[in-house]
C-alpha cells in the first residue's frame, strides 16, 4: 500500500484540491445526467399516458 493513512490519501501529496475536484465533478455530472434522462423518460411516458386518456 502506498498511502500511509487515509488523510495522506486525501491530501494527494498536496494536490488533493485539484485531484478531488476533477474526480468529484466528473462523478456529479454522470449522476446528474443519469437522473436527468430518467426524469425525461418518466415525463415522456406520462405525456403518452395522458394523451392516450384524452383520445379514448
Amino acid at each position: 500500500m502506498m498511502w500511509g493513512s487515509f488523510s495522506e490519501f486525501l491530501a494527494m501529496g498536496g494536490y488533493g484540491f485539484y485531484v478531488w475536484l476533477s474526480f468529484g465533478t466528473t462523478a456529479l455530472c454522470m449522476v446528474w445526467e443519469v437522473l436527468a434522462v430518467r426524469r425525461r423518460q418518466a415525463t415522456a411516458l406520462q405525456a403518452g399516458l395522458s394523451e392516450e386518456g384524452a383520445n379514448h
Partner: protein
Amino acid sequence: MSDSRVTWSKYSSPQALYPLAGTLIPWCAGAAILFMAAGLYLGFFVAPTDFQQGEAYRIIFVHVPAAWMSMLLYVAMALWAGIGLGLKARPSFMMAQAIAPTGAMFTFLALLTGALWGKPTWGAWWVWDARLTSELILLFLYLGVMLLHASIDDLRRADRASALFALVGVVNVPIIYFSVRWWNTLHQGASVSMTAAPKMAATMLLAMLLMTIGFWLYSIAVILARLRCVMLERNRQPRWSQSAAEQDVKEVRA
C-alpha cells in the same frame, strides 16, 4: 441482398429499437460500473507516483478518457447525422440527437479536468494553445448542434439542419487529435500512440484504458436511454409506441 435489407429496416425501426435498447442499457451500465471501479482502484492504489508531476498526474485517469470520448462521440454523432441525411432515415437523426448532450458533457469535463491539471503542473488554468482552443471549439460545436435543433420547430428541418452542422464540424476532430503534432503546443504530446511503445508505466496505462472502456460503456447506456426518450417524445400517436412502451407504462402506474 434483399434479406439483409429486410433485417436492416427491421432493426432500424422504432418498434424493434425501443425494446432492444431497453435490454442493452442495464448490461452496459453494469459493465461500466465494474470497469470504472477497477480503473479507479488501479489508478489510486496500484499506479505509482509520477516522478515529475507528483500525485497531480492522477487527474489523467479521468481527463484522458473524457477527452477521448468527446472526440469519439462527435465522430459517432456526425456519422449518424450523415447516414440520416443520405438515407433519409429518421432513427439515425434520433441517434445523433441522443449523442449530442453526452458528448458536450465529456467535452466540458475534458476542459475542466485539463484546467485542474494545468494549474498545478503548468501554473496556468488556461492557455490559448492549439489543443485547448480546438477542444473549446468542439464544445461550441456540440452546443451549436443542440441549439440549432432546439430552435427549429419543424422536426424534419431541425434534423436536417443540425445534421449538416454536425457534419461540417467534424473537420475539427482531426485538428484536435493532431494539434500536438502540427503545432508547438504547451499541451504534451500523445502518451499512447498506435505506432510507438507507450511512454508510461504499464499500470498507469492499464488504469487509463479501464477508465476509457468504463466511460465508453457508460456513454452507450445513457445514450440508448436518451434515444428511448427521443422516440417516445416523437411518436406519441403511432401504435408502436403504445405496445413498445407498454411495459414501462405499467411500471410507472405501479
